[in-house]
């Protein structure tokens, strides 16, 4: 107490540093540059061939807090009767901040019986994931999830 009282300047600086530290902590986890977001949007648009991508029907099931980015289980379920007349043709998963936007693309058909696929992926950092499904009637549906990654997949040889 005596120290801070006799050195008011030091005390102020300490408070400033504390405040700065707090600011760093509250920085949003998904502070993203527009370039990255549009990159993802462009990848999705290219997959859909310029057709509108609706929200719904698709559920991208992935943990929102990932401990280890080296192997992250992901499941995509699509609400579809999977009949010859109405089925899912293709499913794709995209990411926002890995070196490459695509993760995996799946081709399905009425013989699948159930539109549900799972795999395990790598995540380089906290980011947004998008699953897109193409239906037999030519429409596209999507679902996006924001995930926080604690331990990133090894990229820089760290």
């Amino acid at each position: 107490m005596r120290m801070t009282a006799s050195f008011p300047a030091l005390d102020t600086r300490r408070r400033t540093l504390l405040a700065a530290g707090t600011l760093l902590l509250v920085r949003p986890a998904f502070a993203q540059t527009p370039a990255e977001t549009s990159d993802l949007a462009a990848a999705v648009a290219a997959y859909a061939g310029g057709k509108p991508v609706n929200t719904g029907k698709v559920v991208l099931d992935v943990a929102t807090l990932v401990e280890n980015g080296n192997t992250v289980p992901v499941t995509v379920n699509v609400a579809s009767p999977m009949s010859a007349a109405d089925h899912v043709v293709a499913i794709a998963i995209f990411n926002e901040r890995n070196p490459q936007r695509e993760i995996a693309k799946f081709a399905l058909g009425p013989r699948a019986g159930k539109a549900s696929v799972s795999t395990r992926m790598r995540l380089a950092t906290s980011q947004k994931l998008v699953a897109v499904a193409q239906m037999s009637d030519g429409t596209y549906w999507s679902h996006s999830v924001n995930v926080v990654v604690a331990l990133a997949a090894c990229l820089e040889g760290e």
Partner: protein
Amino acid sequence: MARALITAPASAKRGEVIEIRALLQHPMETGFRPGDDGKIQARDIVTSFTCTYDGAPVFAAELFAAVAANPYLSFHTVATATGTLKFDWIGDNGFTHSETHALTVTG
């Protein structure tokens, strides 16, 4: 030689939707990662997977570098007739691997 593990029922009722899980032993080197010498290691991934049921394709996947090492895939198919499920993986540097699974359909 790579090893693969297929988990699927040996028998199913006609019309039943069965889950098939395929796991392949493969490093899936991304091509973005430096090795011990500091140089970027060449990409070596599995790029394609297909599953055919008595010769007819039921599922296919195109894989990219973001798929984790030892690629795992789970999907479904309708048990239509007793037959063979064939699984084929194709990858960089001429990698190929095939597995088969016999499925008995009853009822």
